[in-house]
């Protein structure tokens, strides 16, 4: 589903205009991003938990240069889906269920 489709559906579901929906969605996203970039995690019920995690330095072999490299630490976003979402979608798109 593309962003446009998402907004269409969201606008319909919430009874807002598309522009309003887009603004509100942008605010949501920017607030969420803002919290994450400050290293704060957020749980959203039914959806899951966003969190940040610092990856430590890694020493990797670069076959191109035939050298070892130190890859600096970095902070990444982690998402773990809620169990509700996980279970709901466990077999989505498959005929098992």
């Amino acid at each position: 589903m593309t962003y446009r489709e998402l907004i269409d559906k969201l606008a319909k579901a919430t009874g807002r205009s598309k522009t309003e929906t887009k603004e509100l969605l942008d605010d949501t996203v920017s607030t969420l991003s803002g919290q994450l970039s400050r290293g704060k995690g957020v749980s959203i019920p039914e959806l899951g938990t966003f969190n940040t995690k610092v990856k430590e330095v890694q020493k990797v072999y670069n076959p191109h240069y035939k050298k070892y490299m130190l890859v600096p630490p970095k902070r990444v976003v982690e998402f773990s889906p809620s169990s509700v979402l996980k279970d709901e979608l466990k077999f989505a798109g498959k005929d098992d269920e």
Partner: protein
Amino acid sequence: MSEKITFRELVELIAKQSEQSQSSTNSFIGELVKIIESGLRDSGSVSISGFGKFELRWMKERPGVNPQTGEEITIPGQNKVVFKPFKALREDVNRPYAKMEARVLDEKPGDSENDANKGSKHDLTETNPPLSKSGVSDSREDDGEDFLVERPNPVKKEPAKPEEKKKEKPVTAPASKKSEVEKISGEHPANEKRPALTPEKETELVEEVQKRSGMNWSYAAAAVLVALVIFLIFLMSRQTDNGSENELASQSDQLTEQVAPNQSGQEFAESEPDVEPGPEPPPQEPDSPPAGEESDIPTNVHTIEQGESLWSIAESTLGNPYLWPAIYNLNQNEFENPNMIQASAELDVPVFSDPDNLTEQQRYQVAEGYLAVYQWTRTNNPDDAKHFLWAVGVFSPDLLDQAASSVDQADLAFAKTR
């Protein structure tokens, strides 16, 4: 780092920003979640512009073991929900670490000192385990100091002894200067240390990553560049202020990033020179102002709060987390284990006016700290200790020489070869 805000707080923040009521924001997010779910169900992926993409990924059936009974089972195939943040979000989140660059290590298989086996297996197994085993502060520190060296380095390492010099070089040493540079460094005694690397390869490498080895030939070019960078930074930091380091960081190019963009102009001028007592002062060193050394050691008192580590205290008070051993060094009487500090205890914290350009004396202080940490780790966790000893050499080769007789010889060899 692992703090969280509650969903309620999030809703409040969004409501405030969008000037909507909290209840409508709440129901909006509820709808959003439902639509994400249905979108995942129908099409397998949902993208949200500026944020990221949710996707369903089918995990095939695979064998597994029941951890409680040890019984072998088959894990049935199922969907996994994955979230891939888009670039903007990734960069935002990674901002505190964005200034660090990957660095090529000296040990390549078949290097003169390490043969292939040693270089590959040995080092991997040696360097990695301590990272995961030891406590937060020192595991980070352990590898971190590699990066530490590289940040302030163009300014302070270049005038150092040959051993130190060969550790790094700026990314942007222009290829055009190479021939000239080679001539110059040819006269330099340190030249012998230069590993056999073809110049072409070096240029290639240089473009991508920061090197720590075999860079004597570019030493002179580096010195010239450093002078330029210093000038640039000085100009920039005069306009922007102390606090605007982020802005500065984003403005500055590759070059300036290496010189740790958060140094302010005045401090820079005061304590930049960091004159090393190297045996042969480099001929190309640009005009270096006289060293502004402080003879006494000013300290502040810091009261430890819940959740703080020496690492985090060093980060907040000294401006550079890798300097934490300096704090440990001043407070060894209070506590012995550098990984364990007591909340509400008081610490003496040294005052470093410009953490990115320490004076010789301050570097010595930090090195002493690392030596103390080394000695503690040596008795308590011998495998990790050598990394601290190496850091001693990075901050003060002199101290490493002085301490040579009282440390483990294998560790010393490690500290010297890195």
